[in-house]
């Protein structure tokens, strides 16, 4: 965190100053480790084993916050008797379909709900990254699920959890992660000792957890711990994602993502959502409890915002205009399709996939096979010059004279040259004022897309084709100002916020959303950001002039709420769990919820409220159910649906791993998304043969001095000079083994690429003893590319493409490689070297590792 989010880290230091103990778990000793109280080196890709060990520690020692767990989580809920665990399935839950490599989730459901699985067969959901919609939208859960408040029922979640994690012993943690047992125990003790009524603990993660083939389950494990310890919905608690880009949260909320529409409404699927009603019902699950019950209002209001007067209740608000998913249209599928010539054009908007995405060579080859490419950026980035300066030009794979791609480079406006909102990592929207005009041809994306849209509409104005109606009926009349006709960002924000269609009054809450076409809302979770016609995101009341929650600085979605599910900061009766951790509570006198934050609960619903039988929507949520978006109002220790690779997290080895999974015969996540494409490959891992060809583990991450693919830092002199060269960090032990010298050169070889880097031999890296073997890990920054003030080979070139099944995020935090001394070859010799490794490793183009490994050789392994 000190490396990648130093300013956020000030709060950790603040806590430390006040006596907090900071633990840092990382494959390498970083700036964070330097100031942490304890550093735990870990084998990359084994966090679930570590966290699972903590879960087991909590359960075995009954250190959970029992009152919280009983009342606010589904610990007591009874699960179907058809469910069987990985304990019994050697790494598989019940319901696995080897054909598709996905699960049928019926057997995971709560008892009595077996047939109302939110997802059923999940193959489709994996392709469209829509599994999680059911988690965030809440699975279909009946009002009354059988519970055992004593937590003794063998099929209650608590007992299932206990059984599931029973093999995650300290010994096993040491075996899998390479973390010594006493260090693990120190961590577990500190974490549990600092959680409860009077204390809370926070868990912070970043892409070190997401960029894995089991990434979602990493976070699930963290969430389970936090729920068990009563750290959710409370001040100083929570699971916090530290996101890496100024408005990456915003671009998820108002998604430039293929599978979502604004406000986490799903992009319709051609088979599942042929009609508006089917689409809406798939979100709200009629009869289900919780706030997604209002989904129709949000959906109708979005379409109303898009198509204005053309959208009427009669034509289902132009639902027919929406394009439909048929499967995986994610960025990696796109790239492979580009290579196959299926995609003609590509826009890059402040993004540099030639350096920043996994398998850089595939990215560049894909771009070299387009008809046209539009790059909008501040600087001439690698993704704009791949045809000229890319490594494939050096190897002869891309010949400029033979490369068809027509490239438009359009200069973009910087953050001070346009106004608008960023949504930062805690869901806080902050408006930026415009300081100066952009230079020359530089323009904001707002300008570009507004005028592009205008021009497209002009060109199609005479069209009578039905397919052009969606574009021609689109509301696209934003006021512009200035000689350059810059569209008004505030007017767009106003539309995002939503308004009453008849009066034009901005809405102040998504509770005002209507399904009758009387409201238009661009993104329902942002409703309120323009409440009262005031740009709430522009509020800048000094921190010195308000309390510590600082509710008048910017605006957080939803409803300017700073901590989600904060009803949980009070006990079931509505009183604070402790004076020290008071946050939101029930004021019996005024008969309303009150506190420092906006209560995440219906303001006047008393703690004693119990829903009438058959109630649905918000009405179905009891007065002591804080997790109001969930179908049962509970925090899910066990997820009966929504997570495609299991209701509980399970340690699987990374797709590329030098070791056999010590826990189960199943090696890697069986449901991971693989692409059998000739450009793609996976280095062999046990139990496959030849894994020793790539004996070392490499992991990548950021340096404080650089930003992602380097487009905003390798081009900036005061930053470039602070980390001027690509390097690889190796332990002294590996340096001895591979013959590497400090400040000498080394090259790293995977089945996809070879890159070179200067060597830093440092004590900050250590080998680990894993399952009796010594495992070496190396670390490389992924910031470098071939343009800018400082250049170097790109670490992401080493990766292949394998994705998490839930969210289609690639595993790019760990891979295997070989490390050799000296510089890499150039030209054709480079390709020969990679080919030689592929041959030795038995890698065939397009081949990938077997998904199921339980039938493979299990010698030298126990636990089966």
């Amino acid at each position: 965190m000190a490396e990648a989010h130093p300013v956020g880290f000030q709060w950790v230091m603040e806590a430390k100053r006040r006596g907090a103990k900071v633990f840092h778990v990382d494959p390498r000793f970083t700036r964070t480790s330097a100031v942490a109280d304890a550093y735990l080196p870990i084998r990359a890709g084994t966090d679930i084993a570590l966290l699972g060990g903590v879960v087991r520690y909590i359960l075995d020692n009954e250190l959970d916050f029992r009152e919280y767990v009983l009342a606010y989580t589904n610990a007591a809920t009874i699960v179907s008797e058809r469910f069987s665990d990985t304990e019994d399935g050697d790494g598989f839950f019940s319901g696995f379909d080897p054909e598709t490599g996905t699960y049928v989730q019926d057997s995971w459901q709560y008892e009595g709900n077996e047939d109302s699985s939110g997802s059923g067969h999940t193959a489709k959901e994996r392709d469209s990254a829509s599994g999680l919609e059911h988690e965030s939208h809440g699975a279909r859960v009946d009002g009354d699920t059988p519970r055992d408040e004593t937590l003794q029922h063998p099929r209650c979640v608590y007992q299932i959890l206990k059984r599931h994690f029973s093999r995650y012993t300290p010994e096993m943690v040491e075996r899998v992660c390479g973390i010594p047992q006493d260090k693990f125990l120190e961590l577990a003790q500190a974490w549990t000792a600092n959680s409860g009524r009077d204390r809370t603990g926070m868990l912070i993660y970043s892409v070190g957890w997401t960029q894995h083939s089991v990434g979602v389950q990493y976070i699930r494990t963290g969430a389970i711990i936090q729920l068990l310890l009563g750290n959710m919905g409370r001040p100083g608690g929570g699971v916090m994602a530290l996101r890496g880009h100024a408005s990456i949260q915003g671009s998820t909320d108002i998604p430039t993502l293929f599978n979502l529409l604004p406000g986490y409404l799903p992009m319709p699927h051609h088979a599942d959502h042929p009609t508006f009603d089917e689409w809406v019902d798939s979100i709200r699950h009629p009869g289900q409890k919780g706030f997604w019950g209002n989904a129709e209002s949000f959906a109708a209001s979005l379409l109303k915002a898009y198509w204005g007067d053309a959208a009427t209740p009669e034509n289902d608000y132009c639902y027919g205009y929406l394009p439909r998913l048929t499967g995986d249209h994610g960025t990696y599928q796109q790239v492979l399709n580009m290579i196959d010539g299926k995609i003609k054009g590509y826009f890059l908007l402040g993004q540099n996939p030639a350096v920043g995405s996994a398998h850089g060579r595939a990215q560049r080859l894909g771009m070299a096979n387009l008809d046209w490419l539009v790059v909008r950026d501040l600087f001439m980035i690698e993704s704009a010059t791949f045809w000229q300066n890319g490594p494939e030009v050096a190897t002869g794979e891309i010949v400029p004279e033979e490369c068809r791609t027509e490239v438009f480079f359009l200069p973009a406006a910087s953050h001070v040259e346009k106004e608008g909102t960023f949504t930062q990592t805690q869901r806080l929207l902050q408006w930026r004022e415009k300081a100066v005009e952009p230079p020359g041809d530089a323009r904001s994306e707002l300008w570009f897309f507004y005028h592009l849209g205008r021009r497209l509409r002009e060109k199609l104005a005479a069209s009578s084709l039905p397919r052009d109606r969606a574009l021609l009926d689109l509301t696209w009349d934003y006021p512009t100002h200035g000689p350059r006709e810059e569209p008004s960002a505030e007017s767009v924000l106003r539309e995002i916020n939503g308004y009453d269609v008849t009066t034009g009054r901005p809405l102040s809450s998504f509770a005002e959303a209507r399904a009758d076409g009387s409201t238009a809302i661009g993104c329902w979770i942002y409703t309120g950001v323009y409440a009262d016609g005031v740009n709430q995101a522009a509020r800048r009341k000094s921190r010195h002039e308000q309390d510590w929650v600082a509710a008048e600085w910017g605006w957080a979605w939803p409803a300017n709420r700073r901590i989600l599910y904060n009803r949980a900061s009070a006990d079931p009766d509505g009183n604070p769990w402790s004076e020290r951790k008071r946050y939101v509570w029930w004021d019996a006198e005024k008969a309303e919820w009150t506190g420092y934050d906006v209560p995440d609960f219906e303001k006047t619903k008393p703690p004693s409220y119990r829903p009438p039988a058959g109630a649905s929507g918000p009405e179905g949520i009891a007065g002591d159910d804080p997790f109001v978006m969930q179908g049962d109002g509970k925090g899910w220790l066990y997820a009966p649906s929504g997570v495609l690779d299991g209701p509980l997290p399970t340690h699987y080895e990374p797709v590329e791993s030098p070791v056999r999974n010590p826990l189960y015969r199943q090696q890697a996540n069986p449901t991971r998304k693989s692409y059998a494409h000739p450009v793609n490959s996976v280095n062999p891992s046990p139990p496959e043969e030849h894994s020793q060809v790539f004996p070392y583990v490499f992991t990548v991450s950021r340096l404080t001095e650089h930003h992602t693919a380097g487009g905003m830092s390798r081009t900036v002199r005061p930053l470039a000079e602070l980390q001027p060269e690509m390097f690889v960090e190796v332990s002294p032990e590996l340096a001895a083994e591979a013959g590497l010298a400090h400040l000498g050169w080394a090259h790293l070889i995977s089945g996809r690429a070879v890159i070179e880097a200067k060597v830093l031999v440092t004590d900050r890296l250590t080998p680990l003893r894993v399952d009796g073997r010594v495992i070496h890990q190396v670390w490389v920054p992924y910031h470098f590319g071939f343009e800018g003030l400082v250049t170097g080979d790109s670490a992401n070139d080493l990766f292949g493409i394998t994705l998490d099944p839930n969210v289609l995020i690639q595993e790019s935090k760990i891979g295997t490689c070989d490390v050799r001394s000296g510089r890499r070859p150039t030209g054709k010799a480079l390709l020969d070297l990679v080919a030689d490794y592929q041959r030795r490793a038995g890698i065939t183009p397009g081949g990938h590792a077997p998904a199921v490994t339980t039938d493979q050789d299990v010698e030298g392994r126990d636990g089966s």
Partner: protein
Amino acid sequence: MVPDPNSLYGPLDPAPDAGYEDAPPRMGFFTDTSVCIGCKACEVACKEWNGVPGSGLDLLGMSYDNTGALTANSWRHVAFIEQPRPTGHGAAAFAGTPTGATVSAASAALAAGTAGPTGTDPGLPPGSPSAAARMVNGTPTDGEPASGGPGSRVDVLGDPVAAREPSAHPTVTRDSPTRTNGGAGPQFLGMPGGQPPGRGTGVEQRSDFRWLMMSDVCKHCTHAACLDVCPTGSLFRTEFGTVVVQEDICNGCGYCISACPYGVIDQRKDDGRAWKCTLCYDRLGAGMTPACAQACPTESIQYGPLEELRERAAARVQTLQERGVPEARLYGHDPNDGVGGDGAFFLLLDEPEVYGLPPDPVVTTRDLPAMWKRAGLAALAMTAATVAAFVVGGSS
């Protein structure tokens, strides 16, 4: 006005001494390295505000330090020191992992030889590999018996005396000759020697590790030699007690560079003038915080009235020592030290020279009266010799 008797040495309030009546309180920096995360925001913020030019694009291999030193083109410099030593609190970082010998010394020794063209003179010349190698051990200190006295915070190895409980893991005994430098001898070429990892006897294993970081800056000495030797008055004392080069005056004579006991001030090659931290004199005048201190995410760099900072620093040292960091000590805080105390002082976790700071700097002008006296005597001798030469022998 008669100069203060402590004008050249000893405790002094420098602003009134430099002719400022009704001077504001003396302002300074307290840099607490125990909370430094080495992010280098200070370096960048300084460059942005002061328009400091680039200082070279070279990988130095000095851990994460690619700046190398304070120069005319780097007015803040974050030092990084990797040491296979205990942190004084917390668990040994690599206890229980199959480590071999440490390489910190060897890597440091190799890094010592890197050149850093900084566009300045003398900039960043290569260093002594053996001295670099020793850096990772911390400085051998006075070797006072651990039994008592204020100096007993560290043992003969410079290690904290408050030894941790022996770990369950095969950590190394304190007096093992190979613990902190184990493979450093044969591994000088960066080829760590020793046994294959994991098969060591245990004695060669490294387990302790700490990574020190410190943001260095001009010390703004109470007795600033650079200022006193400046023949143009370009270097001057501001009303805030800070020491600033006036870029419109400096003619690049270079005297200040030789005079600075900390090696701070430096000459820009393309420009010929001497440059260093101004403690953002322009910002101070506007009541603003210097750029580096304002940017510092973790309050490692604190800015304020020096008196207040000294109190804060003393309290911080006490807190740290209570929390099991006995190696915490202040540097440059003492008005009785050789430079009359620094306007920018530090909380360090090792001996100053480990961070590239002189252990006991003394302002050269302390001896100036004696120097002038000797020069006067020599001049008299010269005159006498001449007179004698002409008179004694007569005309031959």
